[in-house]
């Protein structure tokens, strides 16, 4: 057991290193660099960057050095705990990401809670009352949620919210709370703004979950032990909830790990449309600006979280499913 964990950890470190190299390469794939991006964005908004300035900036940011040296420099900094300065923001990368991290996690968790709270009961109902009217209705509504492109739904919901309910357009806070320090009023304001993002983000995942829950539970409900339990007089509610549902949840536990990177990055597209101050749009803008440190750190972060998530999933699965644990020994 222990040997297995240690081995996995070592492999994880190796994997993370490989991811760092890959992320760096990906960010440098597009021709040009941050300064090109800066010149272009200045030009697009009616300003200009002089040639001397461009050259000075390139030198200062080390963009004129070969790519391997830039990578070494980045690695060196990171191992010292310094993730570099976000070029566009003029602030340390850790600050820029850190600002948005809490809110991203909050929104992602809200979306996940919404999805699960909605999908699991519906999935259970659908399995138990298979082929009933409500089963079809839920399945159908769930699927429609899956089929509508998220960005379009976000725009429509945002506009409807504004036109019919006079709601604040996009964002997570009303203007008066935006830069105010945290307080109960601000937290309440945030809660009022959460439903729209949570629904838009969660709607797609609901269908998947309903379907998986339904089929997993159906698998379990056929098994002899359920028949036995019923025959022995257990109330129907306990017959279903006490054992089959718990077994049906097994596969979900293994997928929890994969949620980890999502929780941190949020959804890029929907966040962009709804103007949520999360890590997703930050990554997109960093990529467009070819901000090496910021984009590289976020991509690396997501990669690391995926590895960690997989590892956690495997551990959880081992813990939950004794067959796997025993099988190894």
């Amino acid at each position: 057991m222990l040997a297995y964990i240690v081995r996995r950890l070592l492999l994880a470190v190796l994997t993370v290193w490989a991811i760092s190299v890959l992320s760096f390469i990906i960010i440098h794939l597009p021709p040009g660099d941050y300064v090109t991006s800066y010149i272009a964005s200045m030009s697009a908004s009616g300003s200009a960057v002089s040639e001397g300035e461009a050259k000075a900036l390139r030198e200062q940011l080390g963009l004129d050095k070969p790519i391997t040296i830039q990578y070494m420099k980045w690695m060196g900094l990171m191992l010292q705990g310094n993730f570099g300065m976000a070029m566009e923001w003029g602030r340390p990368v850790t600050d820029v990401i850190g600002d948005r991290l809490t809110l991203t996690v909050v929104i992602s968790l809200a979306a996940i809670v919404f999805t699960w709270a909605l999908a699991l009961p519906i999935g259970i109902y659908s399995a138990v009352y298979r082929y009933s009217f409500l089963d079809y209705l839920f399945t159908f509504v769930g699927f429609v949620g899956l089929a509508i492109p998220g960005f379009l739904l976000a725009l429509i919901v945002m506009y409807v919210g504004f036109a019919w309910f006079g709601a604040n357009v996009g964002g997570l806070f009303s203007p008066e709370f935006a830069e105010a320090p945290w307080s109960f009023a601000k937290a309440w304001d945030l809660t009022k703004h959460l439903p729209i993002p949570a629904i838009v983000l969660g709607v797609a995942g609901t269908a998947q979950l309903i379907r998986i829950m339904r089929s997993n539970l159906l698998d379990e409900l056929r098994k002899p032990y359920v028949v036995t339990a019923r025959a022995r007089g257990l109330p129907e509610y306990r017959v279903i909830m006490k054992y089959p549902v718990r077994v049906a949840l097994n596969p979900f536990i293994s997928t929890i790990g994969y949620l980890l990177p999502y929780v941190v990055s949020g959804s890029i597209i929907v966040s962009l449309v709804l103007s949520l101050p999360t890590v997703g749009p930050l990554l997109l803008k960093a990529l467009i600006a070819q901000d090496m440190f910021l984009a590289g750190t976020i991509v690396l972060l997501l990669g690391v979280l995926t590895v960690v998530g997989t590892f956690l999933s495997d551990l959880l699965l081992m813990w939950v499913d004794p067959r796997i644990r025993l099988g190894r020994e």
Partner: protein
Amino acid sequence: MKLMRAVSVLVGFGLLVLSIGSGGAAAQTAAPAPVKIGSSLIGKLEGPTIITDAKTFPTSFKEAPMLAEQVKAGKLPAVDKRLPEPSQLFVVKPLNEIGKYGGNWRRAFTGPADHENGNRINSADKILTFDYTGTKIIPSLARDWKVSDDGKTTTIYLRKGARWSDGTPFTANDFVFWYEDIYLNKNIVPTPFFEFQIDGKDGKIRKIDDYTVAFEFPEPYAFFVYQLAGSTGIGAGFATRGAFQNWGGAYAPAHYLKQFLPKYSSEEAANKKAKDLGFDSWVSLLRNRYSWALNPELPVMTPWRTVSPINTPTWSMERNPYFWGVDTAGNQLPYIDRITMTLAENAEVANLRAIAGEYDIQERHMHLSKLPVFLENAKKGNYTVHLDPGLNGADAAIHIGNSYEGDPEIAKLLRNKDFRHALALGIDRDQLNEAFWLGVGSPGSVAPAPDTIYSPGPEWNKKWGVLDLKQANELLDKVGLSKKDSDGYRLRSDGKGRLRLEMVTVGGQFVPYTQIGEMVKQQWKKIGIDVDIKELERNLAFTRDENNQNQMITWANDGSEVLFLFPRHALPVDAAESHMGMAYAKWYASKGASGKKPEDPEMLRAFDLFRASFGAKEDDRVKNAKEIWKIIVEQTWSIGTVGQSPAFMGVRLVKNNMGNVPDRQVNAQHARTPYTSMPITFYFK
């Protein structure tokens, strides 16, 4: 059965979508709301005036309540101690009336790269500026100026008693500091500013006395005073391109910045200080601290100073208690206490919030294509829509890659004037105007608006800028492309099949370049030209420009109306950004040391005229400019489509409770729109 459920849900969704639209349709048939809409969206050009006669200056002064409180609490000196001496003041006569103090101006910004959003409003700290018509130079930070008879020296006179935003006196020493410690330090500014050189020779700054500074050049440089007034690095002030990377001058707060320079401590100490704060060298730290938008502690001379920096979700600014301007009644300006900009991650959200009435005055990021929606919601949002037409000839110009080399046949054609003319004549600009500018723009060539100072005349806006299929087809036949294939497209003269051009566009900008390209592609069918529209990511498009890989690129030509202050969209002379021949731009900028010499004698003639204009007298310069424009239009190095429109930051939403806001303002780069309308005189009624 189940299918019926499916259908009904779909129908329900469809009804939802259609009902949103019918809301719009219903409004169309409702009675017109009592707001200012229609063709009178473009108002009368108006603005405040600067009073220069010291005899009429006010003698007693008042201040904003929020400052008066601080004075009472002993935190600030009294208002007359904070302003310059009474005869040295910057006195503004507001457009309509004396305003009231107070209020928070709400705006949208899109992130740390959007510093121009705040820069322009705050551009009072430029040494000189332009009046509200954008044509006459007027004093700003400097009280007055003089150009010597030989044109070699421009002297500016500062305001006695003016102070930085932290109370320290502002003197000529700040100019000397900037010049000696920043500009001449090769670690900070490796290459001299183009605008601070004449014919490649450097200028110098010399202190005459505490309040007089001279800019001296080895050769006549009468144009220099325009550099001080325009949007350039030397006349900058902190709120002009100085937000992040540019070492804007020509002055800097010596008392504050000394702490970051190794000259005043040591190289090791300066670097250590930087590393402690997370920067890799003292230059990076200095760069960060030099930015008024990033560093709230930086002393400034602007009317507002940053309180919450631009790299946070809210960029907010508060009034500068030491601002050196008053209105004619002696009230210290500005009237508005705060400016708060909220982050909009994308333009749709910004536009939607504007429609909801969440912004007080917003012209940046507002799309012309949404004009009908703005108008529809004007009453509900309690704002008025103003259109400010730009002065440049084309919001979307098809810049020809004159130095393109990739395909010899196409390169040859692109360098052929008749070919370019044919392409220009094959475009139906009225169609483009109707589809993308809602009919509001002016179709024509790239020449600037006829009422601008360098315009060669209104006929040049139409030259090679109309639809003439007959002549276009004739020209193409003449050029050797008379053979066509079965689909009607012209064949290459080198026998390699159909002639296929490539036009690069960039998506997601203020103007829909790709869609314009698509329409042009359909139009060029009629003259037998096949063109591939390639939408590229912006960086990639610019990188290809740098490497002379673009045959044609559709981009703006804003700023070109002030040819000498912002030439890069008109002529290939700037090696940082050039869309009509980077190799030529490099040749011009390096005076032949690198790049490629143009073969076109007309381009060389334009270059010579351009170079000579900086030292020339005003009249000669204007004559040169007109001649250059005639060359540009005649050679059609860039094909104009539709311009002189409000598409580029000209759709302005103004809440109805704002005062002193002009009906129409100059929409131009050198005017730092909206600065020439003097936002310091805007107020909340």
